[in-house]
């Protein structure tokens, strides 16, 4: 058995515990797909694999127990699925590029979830277009609201969809449902003053729960959609950590630009002596300030409002 491990793993197949057996991994950007493609996964698993499928935490399918030499056949078979997912980046029947930047995952988002502030799958797909194919070890996830079901706080880039609640006092009946809920479930950003609701914009995390709770339509959604980006969260053996706030009330364009700029940053600063240096460690090594300057300057973001101060002090806003 001879395979080029690096090529194989880059092409969506993994090294498994069992010698000479691989597993097909199909990433599903944003986690949403047409049910008709289930047939293909099933067929791959049953015809080439061990008849089982694992649903990965990054929202992919993994079909284990596959012989390496069946890869070309499988690549042909999964082509319609790959195309439908928009993953086909000039690979033809050669599968599709994987590894490196991980599947951009997303909670179910506002196609289904009442809490979601945006169509997370759409955003995941659009970020996919912006960053793939790429070898750098990045993890990106999009979550529809600060409840963060996708665990954006454990990603290099966690994107949290926000709305900026709009209050119309003349529709408010001061039932305080929004206030109570915000205190209980959110950050306590709301308070009552003279029967009106006051929103502390420093505390408000843009989850939109107040809108959901309002029985009279006093709270509505902002026309613009906003995003909070948290960065450099990670699991891992070395030092798992929660992502830190980076920018709040950003636009989709801005977050996309920051991520794209980060690829440039990595390209410049990555330590190639290491097998695949993870962006988090590069930022640790270079320092947060350098990172921030580099990724924000390009595209004119450096002077953007709404940046968090970050881990060190004295950072320009």
């Amino acid at each position, binding site marked *: 058995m001879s395979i080029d491990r690096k090529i194989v793993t880059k092409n969506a197949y993994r090294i498994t515990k069992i010698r000479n057996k691989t597993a097909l991994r199909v990433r599903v950007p944003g986690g949403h797909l047409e049910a008709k493609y289930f047939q293909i996964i099933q067929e791959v698993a049953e015809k080439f694999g061990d008849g089982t499928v694992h649903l990965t935490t990054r929202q992919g399918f993994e079909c284990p127990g596959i012989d390496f030499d069946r890869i070309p056949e499988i690549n042909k078979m999964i082509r319609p699925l790959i195309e439908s997912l928009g993953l086909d980046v000039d690979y033809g029947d050669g599968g599709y590029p994987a590894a490196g930047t991980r599947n951009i995952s997303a909670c179910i988002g*506002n196609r289904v979830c*009442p809490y*979601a*502030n*945006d*169509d997370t799958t759409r955003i995941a797909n659009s970020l996919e277009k912006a960053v793939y194919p790429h070898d750098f070890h990045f993890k990106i996830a999009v979550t529809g609201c600060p409840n963060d079901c996708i665990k954006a706080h454990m990603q290099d880039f966690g994107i949290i*969809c926000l*709305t900026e609640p709009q209050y119309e*006092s*003349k*529709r*408010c*009946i*001061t*039932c305080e*449902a929004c206030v109570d809920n915000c205190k209980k479930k959110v950050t306590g950003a709301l308070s009552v003053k*003279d*029967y009106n609701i006051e929103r502390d914009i420093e505390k408000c995390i843009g989850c*939109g729960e107040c*809108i*959901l*709770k*309002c*029985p*009279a*339509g*006093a709270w*509505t*959604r902002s*026309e613009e*959609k906003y995003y909070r980006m948290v960065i450099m969260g990670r699991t891992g053996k070395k030092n798992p950590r929660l992502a830190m706030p980076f920018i709040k009330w950003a636009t989709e364009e801005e977050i996309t630009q920051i991520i794209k700029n980060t690829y440039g940053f990595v390209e410049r600063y990555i330590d190639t002596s290491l097998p695949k240096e993870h962006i988090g460690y590069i930022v640790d090594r270079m320092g947060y300030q350098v990172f921030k300057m580099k990724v924000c300057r390009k595209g004119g973001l450096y002077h953007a409002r709404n940046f968090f101060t970050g881990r060190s002090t004295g950072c320009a806003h």
Partner: protein
Amino acid sequence: MGYALTKQQLNEYLKALGRQYLLVGPIREKAKGTFSDTDKIVYGVFEAFEDLVLEEKAFYSPKEFLMPIRETLFHFLDGQIVEPKIDTKPILIFARPCDLNGIRRLDTIFLKNGDIKDSYYERRRNLVKYVMIECTEGFDTCFCVSMGSGTYKDYEAAIRFDGNQTLLDVVDSTLVTEGLSQVIRKDFVPEYIKENKVKVVIPPIDKVNNSIFEHPIWKEYTRRCIACGRCNTSCITCSCFTMQDVEMSDDGLLGERRRVWASCHIKGYTDMAGGHGFRKQNGERMRFKTMHKINDYHKRFGENMCVGCGRCDDVCPEYISFSKCINKLSEIIKEESHE
């Protein structure tokens, strides 16, 4: 007087009416729905036919044009108490029979309950005229037929939007604009809905007694109802309100008193100064509302308060159906009567 209007004529007519009246009807508020990327259908001011949304039921009723969610009763200025003025432009509300019947219930409460008329309601009521939108199909949750509120005769005008043609029956002569003289005259008698998908049976008033208060059905609603009050705020007939006084300057000399909608489902509705309150259980609140809508009001005024618009069903986040509740109650009372 009947007319058949083309789309263009309709919009010209609406334009002409708009000079005289504030036109109010069901319109779409883009992306203003509770959930992201959803719209909200509400009653609002419109200009052209295209603004109207007829294929979906409005989330809220048109009642806020008669009793605003918040209405200032007085302005206070250093001892002076001043009634605020309101826009006196007449309002023309385009609404279906159920809502028009609902507004009649509001009239009853505000103008006929007790000896004293509610002057704030009255002054707005006097500004409003109604164009009845013909409604023969209803929506999935409507049960106006069961409530006898699918018909309405006291309209100032009635209108049927029928593909490219709009039929109009004008009763109030002030609604006969000059432009209408150019329009084909055509007799139009609006039709009414004959059957809803949802039917309710109202328990006979004489069969309802206090024993129903103890029935476990209300416990079920204690478990299910979250007391959010959407059924009240969306209801065309809910008329409760609470006073709010606000001091607007630090010295307390400037202030206002207003009334805002109240909801018998929402906490605090019965709480007195000192803290004592009644109906702590959400099921008790459901019972209170239910009895009010189909029993208490009827005892007082000879007809049911509920007009079967079904909005409470549409808006309940817990998918509690008021029509189902009525029918369950009927069944229970029927069974108890037989025992």
